[in-house]
């Protein structure tokens, strides 16, 4: 990790100002960084702030949401204060994004070719002819054998997996430094999932990109991530390498997630569950956000929110249970 981070997010706070004058703290004091060639997985339940984090990086937070505080640096360049005009030059070019729903993420009235050529011509000053050639190359790279014919097809003629390949082709078309994949396989068949993730991995190696993989599938994390960030209630509750997380998870929430996975070794009748539901983002508990569901909840958890504490290897956890052993 000697080379500088592609993306470093510091103290990011994205709040939504709701109509009933409540403030939903969708992302609250989030810190992390991603290095070239690294895949960082952002894990958490629905509503934990994963997608808002990724949209914050792209500066695509709409009203009533707002990035209240923090800094997002892409190769040392601050994105938070950047004008929309300058940001359009970064989106798609330096940061590519893949969405969850390939069925609706492509414009139904344009051919596949048109949509790829649009990005290429937007960010590179090239002729239509060259853009066409590059688009065909891109489609071949992401695994379309008859790329020329696919160029002329419309999104409705392709299956979900194929559309996701097109999305990947669009996302990598300008060789971005950072690829954000927001639950890229959630809407796909299990068999296609592996193909798509392999493709993302392959592209990562080819272009030495940094990948931010957003998912709630721990199986995907185990297979493809280098480092893992576990999010709960808009905050990172545990971070570390994949091995640290799967072998020695510390936070009660991470443990709860791992226990809820079926395992081949031991056969138990019922899978473990985490009791309760994620509190609404405008109604988080005062202290630790997990305190309402935590099996090890203590008195001080209800009053104060612990800070994230890291050991020497970079394994960090936001929990009072481990406060003592650090000191």
């Amino acid at each position, binding site marked *: 990790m000697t080379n500088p981070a592609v993306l470093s997010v510091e103290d990011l706070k994205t709040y939504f100002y709701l109509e009933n004058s409540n403030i939903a703290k969708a992302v609250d004091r989030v810190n992390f960084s991603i290095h070239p060639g690294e895949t960082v997985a952002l894990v958490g339940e629905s509503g934990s702030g994963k997608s808002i984090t990724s949209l914050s990086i792209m500066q695509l937070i709409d009203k009533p949401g707002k990035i209240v505080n923090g800094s997002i640096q892409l190769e040392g360049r601050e994105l938070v204060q950047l004008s929309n005009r300058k940001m359009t030059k970064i*989106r798609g*070019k330096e940061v590519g*994004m893949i969405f969850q729903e390939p069925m609706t993420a*492509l414009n139904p009235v344009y051919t596949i070719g048109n949509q790829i050529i649009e990005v290429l011509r937007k960010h590179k000053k090239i002729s239509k002819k060259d853009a066409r050639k590059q688009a065909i190359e891109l489609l071949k790279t992401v695994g379309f054998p008859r790329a020329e014919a696919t160029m002329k097809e419309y999104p409705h003629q392709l299956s979900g997996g194929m559309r996701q390949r097109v999305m990947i082709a669009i996302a990598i078309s300008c060789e971005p430094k950072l690829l954000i994949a927001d639950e890229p396989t959630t809407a796909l068949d299990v068999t296609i999932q592996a193909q798509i993730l392999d493709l993302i991995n392959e592209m990562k190696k080819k272009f030495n990109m940094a990948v931010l993989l957003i998912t709630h599938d721990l199986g995907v994390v185990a297979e493809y991530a280098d480092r893992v960030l576990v999010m709960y209630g808009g905050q990172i509750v545990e971070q570390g390498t994949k091995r640290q997380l799967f072998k020695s998870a510390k936070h009660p929430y991470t443990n709860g997630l791992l226990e809820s996975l079926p395992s081949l070794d031991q056969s138990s009748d019922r899978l473990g569950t985490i009791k309760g539901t994620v509190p609404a983002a405008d109604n988080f508990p005062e202290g630790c956000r997990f305190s309402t569901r935590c099996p090890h909840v203590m008195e001080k958890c209800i009053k104060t929110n612990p800070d994230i504490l890291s050991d020497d290897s970079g394994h960090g956890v936001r929990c009072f249970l481990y406060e003592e052993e650090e000191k």
Partner: protein
Amino acid sequence: MQPSPQGATEIDPVSPQPPLDQNARSSNSKSPFQLALRRFLNNKLAVLGIVVLLTIILASIFAPLLTDLDPTKSDLMKIENGPSSEHILGTDGSGRDNFARLLYGSRISLIVGFSAMLFTLIIGVTLGSISGYYGGKVDSLIMRFTDLVLALPFLVLALTIIALVPTITTALFVCIIALTIWPNLTRIIRGTFLSLREQEFVLGARAIGASDFRIIFRHFIPNAIGPIIVNATLMMAQMIIIESGLSFIGMGIPQPTPTWGNMLSEAQNIRILRNHPEAWIPPGLGIFLTVLSINFIGDGLRDAFDPKSNKR
């Protein structure tokens, strides 16, 4: 589409087959627009509408070839004459040839209908796009303004403006109609945009760095083209009716300019209504057929762009 050398290669026995196959496959890709066109052409009423409307348009364009007579020239010796070999539909109260007026009158109806529709479309698409795309305060402002215009009674407003202006030209008339009708289209486009805004491909377009302007023109309008075309077409029929109606009560484009509404206003006279049906039935039929055919086309377009609406 295929280049002509294809014919030469067919004789060549070593010519490979696969490229042909690939071309055949790709020519099967129909854009949503082409699919709509095909559905439209399968609709018999809509095609009939196109044929009738085209006939009327051609008749208005080639009016000078179909009659030698000047529709504005009065012949005081031949007032309210019945049909004759010279004037096949007779003459009106000022001795002008009814047939020539019928042909030239269609020009005014079609021009007023079409340009008022175009004008409304420009206002409607611009305001509707801004309102639907940006939302928030801009949206509220534009929507309250459209509410304001909608709250004004159209006829009173139009009649007031017409009464205040000394001479009414076609262009002015178009403006009056368009300026009072635009709120309807604005609202429809805003509604379509609001639903499009939630589509993920819009987020996708923003994620690849498309500007607001580009998203509106490249991504929203092509997706909203169905409702826009359909409403514009039906609106054109409505405009023609308004033009005829205002002319009929003498508040339209003034005489001697021939319009169908002006010709019909002659029938306000009970004598002509009773004795000279050849003077007022044709313009009435003209309005009826034009509006009906445009409405058929509009319905056909709606079914073509939204196949679900056709299931009965």
